[in-house]
C-alpha cells in the first residue's frame, strides 16, 4: 500500500494546526491508508458512523483487509456493510475484489477488561471474582478506565496487525473527547502500575502519526462546525493526534440556478410555467437559496478557522441510509476531487 504521511503533509512542522499557513497542502488521494488506525469522530447526528463504514469500504476497494470497530456497539453497521449485525466477534461483512475485505466487531468494556486481566496473567478464578465484583465499581474507582481498556484493546489489535487498517467508530462528541482523553487523564491520576503503562502506551499510539490518525466529521451547520473546530484543536494539542482531512458530510450540491427568481430562470431557458408550478418552484428555490447560503457560509468559516483539507460529501436524498447510499458515499470519499484545500 502506498503511504504518504498525511499528517506530515498537514502539519509540516511540529507547530500543529496553528502554523498552517506556512506549509503546502498536497493531500494524496490515498490518504485513507496512511495510518494503521483511523479514529472517526463527530458530534451526534452528523453521520460519523456511516462515514466510518464508507471509509472501510474505500480502503477495502483499495485491496486492504479492514477491521471496523464500533466502540458504541452500533450493531446496524454490520448490515449496512452487507453482513450480520456487529457483535464482539470479529467477522467478515463484505469482500471486495481479490484482496479487499471489511470485517467488523464491537469492543464491550467488560470484554476488554476480561481480556486485559487474562493478558496480565491473572488467574481465571480471580478473574471471575473480579468480574462478579463488576467493572462498574472498579471503573468508578478509576475514572476513564473503561475507555482506556477499549483503547488499550485497539492498541493490542494494532500491535498484532490483525488488519491492514483498523477503522474506529468513536462514541459521539463530547463523549469522543472523553474517550480520546482517557489515557492522558489517567496519566494524571495514576503514577505507576500496569494501568499507567497501558495509558502511556495508548497515548504513544495516539501521538504516532504513522500508526494512528483522527478523522473528524461535521455538517456545514453552525453548531457542528463550532464543535468540530473545538474538537480538532483539543485532540491535536492535548493528544498530538494527527488529523486526516476533515469530512463535511451531507452537503447539497451547489446550484447556481437557485440564486435567481423562478420567473427569470424560466425566461432564461425559454420555458412557460403554469402559475401553480411557478409558485411551487419559487418557494422551493427561496428555501434552497437560504440553505445554500448558510452552507456556503459555514464552509467558508471552516476554511478560515480550521486549516485542514476538506472532503465534501453529498447529502443523500433519503432519511434511511442503506447499502446503496453507502456505496455512493464511498465513491465520493474515494474521489480525490472531493478534497478541497
Amino acid at each position: 500500500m502506498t503511504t504518504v504521511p498525511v499528517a506530515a503533509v498537514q502539519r509540516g512542522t511540529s507547530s500543529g494546526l496553528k502554523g498552517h499557513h506556512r506549509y503546502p497542502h498536497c493531500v494524496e488521494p490515498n490518504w485513507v491508508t496512511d495510518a494503521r488506525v483511523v479514529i472517526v469522530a463527530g458530534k451526534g447526528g452528523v453521520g460519523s458512523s456511516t462515514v466510518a463504514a464508507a471509509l472501510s469500504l474505500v480502503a477495502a476497494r483499495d485491496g486492504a483487509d479492514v477491521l471496523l470497530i464500533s466502540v458504541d456497539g452500533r450493531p446496524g453497521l454490520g448490515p449496512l456493510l452487507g453482513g450480520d449485525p456487529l457483535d464482539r466477534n470479529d467477522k467478515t461483512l463484505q469482500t471486495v475484489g481479490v484482496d479487499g475485505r471489511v470485517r467488523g466487531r464491537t469492543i464491550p468494556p467488560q470484554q476488554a477488561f476480561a481480556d486485559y486481566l487474562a493478558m496480565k496473567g491473572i488467574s481465571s478464578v480471580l478473574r471471575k471474582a473480579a468480574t462478579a465484583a463488576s467493572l462498574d465499581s472498579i471503573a468508578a474507582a478509576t475514572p476513564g478506565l473503561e475507555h482506556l481498556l477499549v483503547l488499550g484493546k485497539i492498541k493490542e489489535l494494532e500491535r498484532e496487525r490483525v488488519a491492514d487498517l483498523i477503522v474506529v467508530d468513536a462514541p459521539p462528541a463530547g463523549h469522543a473527547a472523553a474517550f480520546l482523553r482517557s489515557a492522558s487523564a489517567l496519566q494524571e491520576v495514576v503514577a505507576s502500575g500496569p494501568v499507567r503503562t497501558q495509558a502511556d502506551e495508548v497515548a504513544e499510539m495516539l501521538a504516532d502519526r504513522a500508526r494512528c490518525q483522527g478523522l473528524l466529521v461535521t455538517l456545514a451547520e453552525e453548531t457542528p462546525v463550532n464543535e468540530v473546530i473545538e474538537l480538532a484543536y483539543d485532540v491535536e494539542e492535548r493528544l498530538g493526534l494527527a488529523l486526516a482531512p476533515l469530512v463535511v458530510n451531507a452537503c447539497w450540491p451547489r446550484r447556481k440556478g437557485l440564486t435567481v427568481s423562478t420567473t427569470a430562470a424560466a425566461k432564461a431557458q425559454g420555458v412557460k410555467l403554469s402559475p401553480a408550478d411557478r409558485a411551487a418552484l419559487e418557494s422551493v428555490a427561496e428555501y434552497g437559496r437560504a440553505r445554500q447560503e448558510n452552507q456556503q457560509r459555514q464552509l467558508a468559516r471552516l476554511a478560515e478557522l480550521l486549516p485542514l483539507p476538506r472532503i465534501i460529501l453529498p447529502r443523500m436524498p433519503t432519511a434511511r441510509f442503506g447499502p446503496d447510499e453507502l456505496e455512493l458515499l464511498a465513491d465520493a470519499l474515494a474521489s480525490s476531487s472531493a478534497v478541497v484545500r
Partner: protein
Amino acid sequence: MSVELAEVISRAELVVTCGPGGVGKTTTAAALGIAAALSGRRVVVMTVDPARRLADALGLDIQAHANDPHQVEGVGADGGSLWALMLDAEATFDRLITERAGDPDKADKILTNRVYRSIAGSLAGAQDYMAIERLHQLNAAGQFDLIIIDTPPSRDAIDLLVAPDRLVRFLGHPIYRALTMPQRSFARVANAGTTAFLWIVRRLAGPRLVEETIEFFKSLSGMEEGLRRRAAEVAVLLRAKSTSFLIVSSPRAEAVAESTHLASAVVDGGFRLDGVVINLVHPLPRALDALDDLDGLEPGPLADQVAYHRELSQLARSERDEMEGLIRLASGVAVAELPLLEIDVHDVASLTKLAALLTGG
C-alpha cells in the same frame, strides 16, 4: 401546529426533554421555555451542554459557569419570564458535599481528594446525577412555575433517570461497604469478590490510588442516607402528575429508532410521556404539474431549480415515511413537527418563531 403541546407547557410544573444527539433538543427546550414565558409563566430552562450560540442567545456565559438561574432579557408576556441556567456538574457536586459533610474540615478533605476530583469532573454518571440534584434544588426553592430540563443525549435508555438509583445501588454495593469499614472488621466481612477487587485495583493502578479511593469512600460514609433519601424524593417528583416527558427526535431513520426505544423506556419506567417533537423536518414541496417536461430541461437555472425540487421532494417524502411509525406510536400524546428552517436557529428571534410553530400560536 400542536395545541396539545401548548396545553402541556401551560399545565406542567416540570418538563423533561429527552432524545438522541444532534436533533436540536436544547433548541427545542429553549423554544418551549419561550412559549411558556409568553403565556405568562415564570419558567427556567436547565441545559447540560448547550451549543455556544444558543448559550449566547440565552445570555449564558459558558466560560463563567452559569450554574444559577439567569433571566433572559426581553422574553415574556403577561407577567411571564424566561430564565436559563447551565448545569455545572462539578460545582453542584461540590455544593452537595459541602452541605452534606457536616463540618468544613470533612468537606475540605473530600473536595481535595484526587479520586473525588476526577469523579466530580469527568464521570458521565456523576453528571447525570448532578442534573437530578440541581433539579431537586430548583424544585425545592419553588421560585418557578415551570422547570424545563434538557437531558444529555441518549440512545436507548435515559441515564438521567436511573442515575439516582445507580448511585444508591453503588453505595449499597458490598465493595463500597467493605471499603468504608474500619480495617479490622473489613478483614472479617470482606468476601472473595471484594478482596479480588482491591487486589486487582492495587495491581493495576498502584497502591496510592487504592489508598485515596478508600479515603474517598470513607469520607463519603454517613452521607449515604441523605443521598438515598434525595434520590427517592427525585424519583417521586419525576413520576408526579405535574411532570411531563417529551421526546425530541429528527426524521432520520436512526434517530426515529432511538426515539422509539426512548419512548418505551419512559413509559416502562412509569413516567408520563406527554408529547413527541419531530425536529429538523424538510418541507415537502408542492408537486409540479408539468414535471415530465421540466425533467428533460437542458442545464440552466430552471433545471437547477427543478433538480432541487426533485431532491427535496424525495428527501421530504422519505422523512415522512420514517416519521410515520413514531407518530403512530405516540398516539394519544401531542405530536409536533418542526421544519428545518431556512437558517440555523441560534437567537431569540428564531427561537420565538420556533416557539410559535410548537404551540400553534
